[in-house]
């Protein structure tokens, strides 16, 4: 056991820090859920890629840096420390990318991975449907194969980034007589095909962070099938594992929020009830524990271990923590907590973060679904 960074890891930290210091835009970009902001964030993806920083955990053979998990965590710490822009292509780089590497054909990898890294293809998720939310196996959108083309009909919803994205990936029912998890296939679909209608959905903050996608006899070549026909569920589970797992929810985000929350408290201490001290400590202690847990898990994985249903524990923990911290911030702000243009306390950012924190316990599998997974797979309770 050695819970300190090596000199190589420190050197790597300085390398990314120096690049970020020189390249992170000094002016905050527009929200990535606006047309203008989306393109600004695409430019930022290109910029990251120009420094070879856009998909650092990808293996070198796919153009990445082949970073191990510890280096990835260092990268993220510096990324959040520099307050660099959100990753508009998170669905691509962190979810579809690793899935393609595991299940894709040679042609698919060469067609999609590079375009993803450069920001030329920004990806949306296409899992949920009006009748298939927590119960994802209830998917009804069909894809019928004839003459080398799938004909897709149906509707996807809550598709993150779909308002402006170039492509979507998702599950479609290719065996019309099948039920539940069987007969589903994982298909990649360009969003500019005839028959596709994208209807943006305004989120709680008023911006279209997700959208409905309607498919009306949309023709997609069979080459866009990822993995085997009917193997979609297995592949989607691997992708969902990436989402819940280490890749997306690095601890730096929550540690940074906890530090800002402490500063907000100290700036307003005279107006705060002493009860708020308890919340400040809770925020620090939990974000610290989350970081320790992730480093512990990353170390175990580097030593040859694997992560399974344990990622459900983390998903519940960080999403509840994130919400608690933002709720606390609003309490500290008092009457300023409704001012969406208050520059003194950065109230606008806290309010936006507060609203976003309500999404955490819902997306990537609601926390209630995660609790079922924990109870059934980790504690051995019956279905």
């Amino acid at each position, binding site marked *: 056991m050695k*819970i300190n960074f090596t000199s190589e890891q420190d050197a790597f930290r300085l390398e990314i820090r120096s690049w970020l210091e020189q390249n992170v835009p000094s002016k905050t970009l527009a929200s990535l859920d606006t047309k203008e902001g989306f393109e600004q964030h695409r430019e930022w993806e290109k910029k990251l890629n120009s420094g070879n920083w856009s998909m650092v955990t990808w293996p070198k053979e796919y153009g990445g840096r082949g970073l191990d998990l510890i280096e990835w965590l260092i990268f993220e710490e510096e990324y959040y420390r520099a307050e660099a822009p959100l990753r508009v292509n998170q669905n691509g780089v962190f979810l579809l990318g690793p899935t393609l590497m595991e299940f894709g054909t040679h042609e698919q990898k060469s067609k999609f991975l590079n375009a993803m890294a450069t920001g030329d293809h920004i990806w949306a998720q296409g899992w949920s449907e009006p009748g298939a939310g927590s119960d994802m196996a209830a998917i009804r959108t069909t894809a019928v194969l004839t003459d080398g083309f799938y004909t897709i009909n149906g509707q996807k919803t809550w598709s993150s980034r779909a308002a402006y994205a170039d492509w979507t990936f998702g599950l479609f029912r290719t065996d019309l007589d099948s039920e539940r998890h069987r007969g589903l296939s994982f298909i990649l679909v360009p969003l500019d095909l005839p028959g596709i209608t994208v209807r943006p959905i305004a989120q709680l903050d008023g911006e279209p962070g997700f959208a409905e996608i309607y498919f009306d006899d949309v023709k997609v070549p069979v080459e866009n099938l990822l993995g085997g026909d009917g193997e979609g569920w297995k592949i989607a589970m691997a992708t969902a594992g990436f989402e819940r797992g280490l890749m997306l929810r690095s601890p730096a985000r929550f540690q940074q929020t906890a530090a800002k929350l402490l500063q907000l408290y100290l700036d307003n201490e005279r107006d705060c009830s002493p009860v708020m001290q308890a919340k400040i400590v809770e925020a620090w202690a939990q974000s610290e524990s989350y970081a320790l847990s992730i480093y512990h898990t990353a170390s175990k994985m580097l030593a040859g271990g694997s992560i399974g249903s344990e990622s459900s524990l983390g998903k519940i923990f960080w999403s509840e923590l994130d919400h608690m911290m933002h709720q606390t911030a609003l309490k500290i702000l008092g009457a300023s907590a409704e001012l969406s243009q208050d520059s003194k306390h950065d109230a606008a950012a806290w309010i936006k973060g507060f609203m976003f924190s309500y999404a955490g316990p819902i997306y990537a599998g609601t926390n209630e679904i995660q609790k079922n997974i924990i109870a059934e797979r980790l504690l*051995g309770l019956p279905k």
Partner: protein
Amino acid sequence: MNFIFTEEHIQFKDAIKAFLKDECTPASIRSGWAEKKSFNQNRWKGLEELGVLSSNLSEEYGGLGMDQVALALMVEEMGYVGLPEPVAEQTFLINDLLDLLPAEMQKKIQEHHMSGASYISVSHPLAPNPLFLNESAGLLLFEEDSYQFVARHDLEFEEVASNDPSRELAKIKSINHSISSTENFEILNSAVSSRGALMTAAFLVGLSQKMIDLSSAYALDRTQFGKPIGSFQAVKHMLADVAVAIEFARPAVYRAAYSLADNNPKSALHCAHAKYMSSRAAELACKNSIQVHGAMGYTWEMDLHIFMRKAWSLMACWGNEDKQQDIIFNTLKSSKDELGVLYTF
């Protein structure tokens, strides 16, 4: 950065786990209650033979030279079986601090330590009623600004009943003779407080794990409405909440132990963090475990309360959640410029 245990850590832990599984059962704990003698000399001897009691003494004193990480893993296993004997106290609060004591006191303690009786009890404002004084060779007594070592025959005390019958506590009535000192008091006081927090934290993690295991087994076994109650989501979710709390207390305990071994200047904060997280986990484990057991959880017959009682005691002593919260808050306030993502390691 390599946050995993060494082979040596794992082997040590496994050896203790295997011993305790057979030697420290709920039945043996209950028989200690019945005889009003929870300190089982045979078990203590067995642990001594395993090298556990002197595990963290240096090899020149016949120890194994184990670090605090090994001790934390050991104490977690002791928590899992609810071990009554004060091995955690002996290793963390006596062995680990010997080097900091004045030479004369060290010598005196070692005379007793090496003699047959071996166990030295501790009293501190955070845990004022010493444990198993009857079985001890002496007492290391911390007061507001000084500390003293008292041999057992120089002490008068009376027994104090604990809500956990496995904890035989005492209250000091008078001291006839002692070696007293103020030397290194601040350092020693901070060291013993941190170790008290960490030791109880590790024990609480083990207890919590035991409680959730007992509750999961019960939920699988007990049927209502024609199915195991563990198939109902209300029950599943209560236990999942406990699993989450334990998962995020555990690495805090391991890191705090490592900080002590590594002489990290922030070890006091890290130990406070460990106790804070594990107290909260244990509190939830108690609450939800008894609820999952239903009325059975409220009986003396069910083994669950063996572990709950110890958890309630250990949450309270060596600094409860609120005390740790104060330590954390004051530390954060004084080091706020360092906070953020670079602060953890």
